[in-house]
């Protein structure tokens, strides 16, 4: 079985400051890793994904994440946030086998960017 833990339920930050949203996972098999963003009353939008190769993954809107296999982490970072980044962020994992589409999600981190 897989699980995802998002270590911070809420992260307040001032505009133009850097931010890190933390995600740890557990799985007995090799995994794919994802970060999604969800704006109010909308579905989830994929920010970035780790499939293989370089452990530093760049996504949309200036976000990036680093896969650390030894620490089973996939933290999301942005060097300078904007007001428009205020949203809910979800980390997710799926295994590489036949169930590759069946994702397990964390409970989310609410990012609030203040002026």
């Amino acid at each position, binding site marked *: 079985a897989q699980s995802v833990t998002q270590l911070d339920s809420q992260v307040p930050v001032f505009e133009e400051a850097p931010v890190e949203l933390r995600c740890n996972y557990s799985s007995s098999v090799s995994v794919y890793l994802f970060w999604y963003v969800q704006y109010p009353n909308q*579905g989830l939008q994929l920010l970035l994904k780790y499939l293989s190769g370089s452990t530093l993954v760049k996504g949309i809107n200036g976000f990036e994440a680093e896969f650390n296999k030894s620490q089973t982490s996939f933290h999301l970072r942005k060097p300078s946030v904007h007001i428009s980044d205020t949203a809910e962020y979800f980390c997710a994992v799926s295994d590489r086998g036949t169930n590759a589409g069946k*994702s397990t999600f964390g409970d989310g981190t609410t990012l609030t960017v203040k002026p």
Partner: protein
Amino acid sequence: GAGVSQSPRYKVAKRGQDVALRCDPISGHVSLFWYQQALGQGPEFLTYFQNEAQLDKSGLPSDRFFAERPEGSVSTLKIQRTQQEDSAVYLCASSRLAYEQYFGPGTRLTVT
């Protein structure tokens, strides 16, 4: 292009009523997923289709939940005899590649 659409966007049902939630995936997407998102939580997997075949329904919480995709395109999630604990947002996602899912806006179900 058109994304994943879901209807209705909001549904209020009285306890004991049956409901049907519709998902229109992106054209050509073979895989379709249903998730349930309770308030303040992340989405939880319900079921997965590849074309018209339901390959995994391990996440359906009870036999009151039923999903179908008869022609390999549109999918319907049906909940019989709704209970208050069924109140949640139901998300549909489709994909051409299993690991790259595109989500619809969801249907918010409120059972009173």
